[in-house]
């Protein structure tokens, strides 16, 4: 039986009191005790239940809808069809305005474009009644020819799925709107850095491959769910399980033709997102039904709806050519990705672009070409999914890199070390050339990739003997490396406001969205560290568009880095305000004061190394009438006399709070901080995997994995290793077992956990996680991101290990027993 270990040997810096420690989650107790903290448990008087009628056809015009029988059913309050809702073209992709996503959706349309597309909404007094009403709606369809394969969809004469996108704010710029509606091409890119043809001509070896990745489901345990109601001011409030409250507020206003001021989005605890909730989905359904009925309405997707009419990872076909010199130098990459966005564009263009942009920059080369085509088909809608195009791109790149190493007779680890980027390098892809001057947007100021590879290889035992053959079992080992960003360079804004309470506690009101990854805890640790207080003094408030500062939301690995830096800046502003008051009370310049464990200290530069001068206690007394001569101002303190048991020699934050709320320095101490940057520091990652392949059944068992992540600094090592372990497990399914399959008419064949295999405890390998810390100078306490990058590693590492075991290369995910057996038949032992 396997054992599982996590490497928690992260160095705790002596000058950090809260950051770097494995603190318990701030929401741990409610989560383990079944407290009603999710949208599903949000109840209102007279609440109705909304349901959606889905299209049975992959492509059809709606000729008529007769809802009279459904409306006649007692307890049914509303049936909405395309005639009853605002007709505004919009996008649901949770991105900043203007979205790089086509405005190709109506809330309800006269045409349906995939099996599962929305036809009508129902609100009724019980879920069962709503379900019954759906069956009574009579729809007459004119079925249209459908196309399911992206290569077919791009051909002349293929069924055209959308009209040109003239409503897009960027219309005419090829920057977000539909690129070529006639050929179903949502977006296109043709990028070249350096001269690829010249570099390829110089190459002594060219390694070429075609890689296919499949459609998979997020399987967040909590489905999409929201409750919409009109509040006491007649504003539309939506309690929603979302990653992007602010983008949703804007898009909901657009789709419903309401002013933004009429909408409030409240995010409760969220039961997982992984990108599926970086999208407006059910909010306009609940909103439209709530407006139509003037009653609160809850809408919740079933598991089957999640897995047929939710969002999915983009299937892609990626062709990659790599030009090499025999000494192992990489000269050029030439990648072409064809992404299948399904029936609507949403994140299609940005995800497919990311398959090249987020990946090729891992290696130094003379030249890079990346071409992308994103294509509509009459299939379920692809969207954002943890990794955002990088898992697709890295499966191609890291499989191909392995093929390069074998073609050159080099060790795959050494070959990677010879070519990967180094600290101080510029991102070779994220550049633009203006007047022959190359402008770099992104520099790798921190890079622990070498350490990830070396420590990972050592922990894994790369190069040590392996019993490769045992009966019909073959064993092999594989490696892959990866990187990601921390936020979208130049497209982020996030932070918090912080308010001091009279007991020296602080409300941190953040727009960042904790969706289960633990960002409330991370942000609380950052706030506590920056303020100089314990974690118990920080009171987190989750995202609420009426209360929290604007934040782009939880996606693109942005929260710790972007919102975390914003929280740090807010805390520093609050600390500045506190020290101004303290300075006045103590008659000491504010720049000579500091806060440690909620007590004001004098900053003393003589402290030992690593402790920034927190030695000298200043306040000789804080009790009125009890203060020594020369401590002018202390008389003004009101509270200390009423605080029994208080040491008379400490000036605490509670004293400052009392002084500011009731004493002579009356004010509300409060500050905000927000952060935006053109950079996006890369976390780096090395993945090692060992597999056993049964050559008789084709079954692959992953026996061991080592995961090594450079995250700059682990704000909380337990939460960080939890991110790695979860991402790796999700990617094990991507590598070996998960695929949403469609039948010949475009229906999902496996919309449930019976026929869609997610890894369980019994399938798990032994796993070791190593956290590498190369501090990022721009990040909060040196942190960059952690949550996405590990999902890029397992699929190529496992494919490479299977090659090592069998000598056959599988370039098509998931690597099922059928594919293994087929590959073995082609190349029998």
């Amino acid at each position, binding site marked *: *039986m*396997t054992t*599982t270990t*996590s490497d928690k040997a992260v160095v705790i810096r002596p000058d950090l009191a809260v950051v770097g420690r*494995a603190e*318990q*989650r701030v*929401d*741990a*107790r*409610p*989560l*383990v*005790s*079944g*407290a*009603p*903290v*999710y949208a*599903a*448990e949000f109840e209102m008087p007279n609440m109705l239940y909304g349901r959606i009628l889905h299209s049975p056809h992959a492509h059809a015009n709606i000729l008529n809808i007769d809802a009279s029988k459904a409306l006649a*059913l*007692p307890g049914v309050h509303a049936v909405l069809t395309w005639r009853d809702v605002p007709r505004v073209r919009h996008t649901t992709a949770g991105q900043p305005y203007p979205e790089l996503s086509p405005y190709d959706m109506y809330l309800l349309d006269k045409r349906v474009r995939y099996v599962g597309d929305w036809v009508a909404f129902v609100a009724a007094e019980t879920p*069962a*009644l709503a379900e*019954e009403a759906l069956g009574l709606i009579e729809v007459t369809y004119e079925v249209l020819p459908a196309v399911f394969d992206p290569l077919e969809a791009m051909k002349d004469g293929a069924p055209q799925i959308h009209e040109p996108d003239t409503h897009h704010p960027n219309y005419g710029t090829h920057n977000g709107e539909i690129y070529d509606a006639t050929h179903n091409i949502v977006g296109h890119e043709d990028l070249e850095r350096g001269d690829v043809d010249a570099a390829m001509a110089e190459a002594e070896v060219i390694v070429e491959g075609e890689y296919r990745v499949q459609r998979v489901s*997020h*399987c*967040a*345990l*909590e*489905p999409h769910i929201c409750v919409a109601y009109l509040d006491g001011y007649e504003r539309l409030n939506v309690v929603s399980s979302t990653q992007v409250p602010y983008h949703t507020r804007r898009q909901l206003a657009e789709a419903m033709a309401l002013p933004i001021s009429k909408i409030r989005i409240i995010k409760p*605890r*969220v*039961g*997982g997102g*992984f990108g599926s909730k970086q999208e407006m989905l059910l909010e306009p359904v609940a909103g439209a039904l709530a407006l139509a009925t003037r009653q609160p309405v809850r809408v919740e997707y079933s*598991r089957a709806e999640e897995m047929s009419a939710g969002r999915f990872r983009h299937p892609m076909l990626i062709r990659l050519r790599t030009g090499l010199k025999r000494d192992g130098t990489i000269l050029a990459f030439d990648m072409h990705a064809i992404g299948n966005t399904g029936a609507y564009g949403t994140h299609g263009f940005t995800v497919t672009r990311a398959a090249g942009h987020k990946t090729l920059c891992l290696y130094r080369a003379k030249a890079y070409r990346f071409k992308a085509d994103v294509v509509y088909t009459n299939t379920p809608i692809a969207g954002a999914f943890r990794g955002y195009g990088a898992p697709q791109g890295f499966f191609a790149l890291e499989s191909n890199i392995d093929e390069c190493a074998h073609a050159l007779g080099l060790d795959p680890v050494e070959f990677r070390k010879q070519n990967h980027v180094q600290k101080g390098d510029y991102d070779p892809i994220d550049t633009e050339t203006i007047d022959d001057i190359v402008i770099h947007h992104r520099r790798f100021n921190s890079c622990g990739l070498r350490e990830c590879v070396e420590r990972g290889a050592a922990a894994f035992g790369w190069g040590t003997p392996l019993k490769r053959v045992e009966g019909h079992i073959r064993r092999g080992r594989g490696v892959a490396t990866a990187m990601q960003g921390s936020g979208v360079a130049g497209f982020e804004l996030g932070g918090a406001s912080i308010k001091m309470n009279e007991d020296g506690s602080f409300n941190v009101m953040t727009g960042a969205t904790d*969706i*289960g*990854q*633990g960002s409330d805890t991370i942000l609380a640790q950052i706030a506590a560290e920056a303020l100089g207080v314990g974690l118990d003094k920080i009171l987190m408030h989750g995202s609420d568009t009426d209360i929290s500062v604007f934040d782009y939301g939880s996606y693109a690995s942005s929260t710790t880095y972007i919102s975390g830096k914003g929280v740090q800046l807010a805390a520093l502003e609050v600390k500045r305000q506190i020290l101004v008051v303290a300075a006045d009370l103590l008659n000491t310049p504010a720049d000579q004061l500091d806060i440690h464990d909620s007590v004001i200290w004098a900053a003393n530069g003589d402290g030992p190394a690593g402790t920034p001068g927190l030695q000298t206690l200043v306040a000789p007394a804080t009790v009125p009438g009890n203060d020594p001569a020369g401590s002018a101002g202390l008389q003004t303190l009101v509270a200390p006399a009423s605080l029994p048991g208080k040491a008379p020699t400490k000036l605490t934050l509670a004293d400052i709070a009392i002084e500011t709320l009731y004493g002579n320095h009356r004010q509300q101490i409060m500050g905000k901080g927000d952060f935006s940057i053109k950079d996006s520091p890369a976390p780096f990652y090395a993945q090692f995997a060992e597999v056993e392949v049964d050559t008789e059944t084709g079954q692959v068992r992953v026996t061991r994995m080592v995961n090594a992540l450079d995250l700059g600094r682990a704000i909380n090592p*337990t939460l960080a*290793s*939890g991110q790695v*372990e*979860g*991402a*790796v*497990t*999700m990617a094990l399914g991507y590598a070996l077992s998960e695929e949403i399959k469609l039948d010949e008419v475009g229906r999902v064949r496996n919309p*449930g*956990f*019976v026929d869609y295999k*997610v890894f*369980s*405890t*019994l399938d*798990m390998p032994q*796993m070791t996680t190593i956290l590498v810390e190369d501090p990022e100078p721009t990040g909060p306490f040196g942190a960059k991101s952690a949550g996405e990058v590990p999902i890029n590693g397992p699929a190529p590492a496992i494919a490479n290990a299977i090659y090592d075991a069998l000598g056959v290369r599988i370039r098509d995910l998931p690597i099922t027993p059928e594919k293994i057996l087929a590959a073995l038949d082609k190349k029998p032992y």
Partner: protein
Amino acid sequence: MPEHTDIEMRLTVNGRAQHWRVQPGETLLEALHHHNFKGTKLVCGTGDCCACGVMLNGESVNACCMLAAQAEGAEVLTVEGLARGAKLHPIQEAFAQAGAAQCGFCTPGLIMRTYALLQEQPDPTEAEVRAALGGNICRCTGYVKPVEAALRAAKMMQQASE
């Protein structure tokens, strides 16, 4: 609309006597939710993820896959019934300490399966924990910390009983 006759039933949930009227087709999970026992989660509705795990007369069951009426006269224990006031059950404490809850939506099911295991086997091996939790789907943690938590809980409960 077919006419339904409500079914009257009595049971105890977390030690409290209940008198319910349920529909013939209503699942135990739906009935628990209707009666404000909302800690048990609906995730798949088909018995394939164990997020809805509860104890029924001392046996671990999936509440989404049985009719409420089948619980007539039964003693049901849900995740809300484990803590004693503000004091968490050791299994809950272990899950909190180990960082075993990320989004928390599968956590009630994992905790109840762990409870069932530790009733039968107070000192399980890691293999026994993995086997016991084999039907519980978690999409956040990779199971590493939930398995650690279950083993930690076993130790905590043994120490408490010594």
